[in-house]
């Protein structure tokens, strides 16, 4: 089916290969920021499975942005929780990627907006995002979209 222009929707089986490819690009970018993000050598064989599993899981939201029907970006968020909190469930954007050629057109903003709508429709009122502490571009991006620092994660090799 021909889909003109930009669309954002839940990913399905037909998007798996394209999203897996972007997933690898995303992780290859992240690994530049900290050695604890170094990706495994056989990442390619894992990525397809990772994406397929994400489509099936109901505690994972996988959105795909398509330009004229071709995937150019995606967002993957996990629904997490803490029973001690009043907001016992929240969505966390774990991966978000837009192909370089399609940057600066508001595609990531659309993906975030759709993720917010999807969470809201599930009765979830908090959308968070995680990214490497050194990724200043991501920090600026999320702050521009109204996100604020919430939880710091520190690591230490033991």
């Amino acid at each position, binding site marked *: 089916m021909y889909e003109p222009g930009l669309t954002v929707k839940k990913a399905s089986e037909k998007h798996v290969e394209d999203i897996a490819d972007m997933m690898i*690009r995303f992780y290859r970018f992240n690994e530049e920021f900290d050695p604890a993000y170094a990706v495994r050598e056989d990442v390619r064989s894992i990525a397809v499975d990772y994406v397929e599993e994400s489509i099936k899981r109901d505690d994972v939201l996988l959105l795909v942005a398509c330009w004229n029907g071709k995937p150019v970006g995606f967002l993957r968020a996990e629904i997490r929780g803490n029973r001690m909190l009043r907001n016992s469930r929240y969505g966390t954007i774990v991966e978000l990627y837009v192909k*370089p050629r399609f940057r600066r057109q508001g595609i990531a903003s659309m993906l975030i907006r759709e993720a917010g709508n999807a969470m809201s429709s599930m009765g979830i009122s908090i959308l968070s995002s995680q990214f490497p502490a050194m990724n200043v571009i991501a920090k600026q991006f999320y702050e521009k979209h109204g996100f604020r620092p919430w939880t710091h994660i520190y690591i230490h090799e033991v």
Partner: protein
Amino acid sequence: MASIIVRKAGEEDVKVLAEYVARLKSLNEELDPHYKVVDDLESVSLEYVSNAISNPDSIVLVAVDEDSGSVIGFIKVDVKNRIFYEPKYKGVITDLYVHPSYRRKRVGGLLIEKAVEELGSRGVNMITAVYPVNNLIAREFYGKLGFTDLDIEQYRTF
């Protein structure tokens, strides 16, 4: 910690260095769409590395993990004539890459140190580095090593 040695690059290093060059240029692509890489990045990188190794005005050094014997990073420095200025020659770091698994071990600093020694032996006593303005990882890295701003390159497309 594994001991790291630095030596001059040879023909046997071309393949892995081309992979690192491609990784570095792909990182630049993530940082700014104007660095969109070419489709045949792999073959262009191979040619780039081969040319650099045989060019007497380029210094190409590799960092090797002595335990595994694998090349974990490299530096390419081009000696340029500053015809109008003193000092008359400078070494320009055009490429510096350390595999993500080996970051935070001062490998980059070691590569620069050895490049500086090599430049010194050629009578060159100035070193500069060129990288995308959005590469804040590089900016922080070079800043820590005492580099400050010299040139500005601006662009517009038409």
